[in-house]
């Protein structure tokens, strides 16, 4: 599934772009490993079964919240741009 170039460790290191250098990511890796093992055990389900909204809500909150937020690290490295920040008031 993965080679050295896109191993979890490598991708996690790349994810540090715009964050801190020399940061210990071991604890984060542990959570990732639990889930990676699940994936490799072929317990995955069809993507269309994934959570998108609660039944009592009209809008598809999953789409609204996340669709503009997915980050392609390759593009980020090329352009240095961040993904679009969702409208939120603080």
């Amino acid at each position, binding site marked *: 599934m993965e080679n050295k170039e896109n191993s979890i460790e490598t991708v996690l290191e790349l994810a540090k772009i*715009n964050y801190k250098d020399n940061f210990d990511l071991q604890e984060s890796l542990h959570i990732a490993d639990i889930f990676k093992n699940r994936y490799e055990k072929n317990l995955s389900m069809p993507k269309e079964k*994934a959570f998108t909204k609660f039944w009592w809500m009209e*809008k598809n909150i999953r789409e609204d919240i996340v669709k503009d*937020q997915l980050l392609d690290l390759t593009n980020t490295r090329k352009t240095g741009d961040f993904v679009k920040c969702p409208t939120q*008031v603080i």
Partner: protein
Amino acid sequence: MIVSEFKYPIFSINAMKKDLLEGKYTVQQLNDYFVENINKNKALHAILHINPISPEQINESQQRYNNKQPRALEGIPIAIKDNILVKDMYNTCASKVLEGFVSNYDATVVENLRKAGAIIFFKTNLDEFAMGSYGNNGAYGGAVSPWKFKGENNNENILAGGSSSGSAVAVASGMCPASLGTETGGSVRLPAAWTGIVGLKPTYGVCSRYGVVTYASSLDVVGTFASSVENCEIVWDSIKSYDKENDATSVPFPENHPMYQENNIRVAILSNIKSSSACVEKAFDEVIDYLKTQHVLVDNIEVPESEYIVPAYCIIAWSEAMSNLMRFDGIRYGKELELTDKSEDTNVIKLNDYYKKTRTEHFGKEVLRRLIAGTMFVSHKYKEIFFDQANIVRQKYIDFFEENWKKYDFFLIPTASTEAISIEKSQNNSKTDEYYTDLKTILANLTGTPAISIPIKVCDHQLPIGLQIIAPAFGEKSLFKFAKKIEEKFNVFKNLEDVIKTPSNK
């Protein structure tokens, strides 16, 4: 003064209103009493910001009592977690990145409290950006529990639980009769259980998130702390509202909502999510035994794929957090950086370097850990392994809950796997141990359902234990009614003054 007759830590809002109506004391005297308690309990570090109480508001509330027309929370002081905006007050989220930020408007829940007559004068401590289970991840130090308090800065002090640690401690130590917190994975119920008070996580969308600094948008809710189920219900009823204009995830509370039949109460124990403390298990079993004597139907059911509860939650919450906290870059939001490290060639710092420096200097370690991991979880190629799979697991839990709501009125489970731990003990725990502290509370967040934690016993270590009751969506009223039955039987607030040591009574 008559208000001093209140017994720690129960403050009945309805009893106080009755006293105020009868003129036993004034609104000013009542609030002075709580200010005195705040001053006595400063060592618990529950409070981040405090504003003087407005004399105009005190006078208005007093006038309403004089006219025998008090509103639901007339003249009652309520504390607010410091990630919920209060007009003209600081809002730091216990983070240096928001140091000095003053809100120019009220969050909808705060506006609703004001409409109900509540007095808002202090904001409470929390884990930075509500990220934590122990309540000690804040940039300004952690709040500690009043239980077995050993004195300021003592490692033997007991953790309050997080992330809404300050709001829980404020109620548990008698600084106010109720407070607001926020939940993403159990940040109200866990500290409620660990400090021996009542904590409610409402149905997702029932209380507006407008003006609440977002951690994970699909999980966040505003919850309430109180010293009794009755107080909790009064506050929840005051803050809930359909906020269509401001919050796209807000929903109206329906007229037809779930309510159990008095002679046919059906509960299910989520039996495969085990506790690691014998005291917790024993206290939980005592409640179950009692319910059986009351002819409540009790079954055991097993949550599918329970080993993925915590990882799925972490992946979803951290991925959403990564996106939500990206705006705190010192340009769009957040404290600006002093530009001393300029490039020699252009005399301008590179944008990415600026972001990196801002975030490195102003975000705490735990926030950085979650943001970096969250970035990975939704990154190219890894999204399908982590984020998509986590959402599939989430839907499995929702389907499991919905299927079982056809058979049961409530799910029962202890609120936490253990009683509260000391700061010292927590320092020996790994971060993964801390994440698993929320194991029993996360499901209600992933499924959007309401849940309440009520204190049921003081364990052999002289620490409180909480019971968690989960109901179907919009089952809050049913939850309150059932929780009151259990509270009446297992009221741990009898003769507790000998047990609890706080700065005010030690």
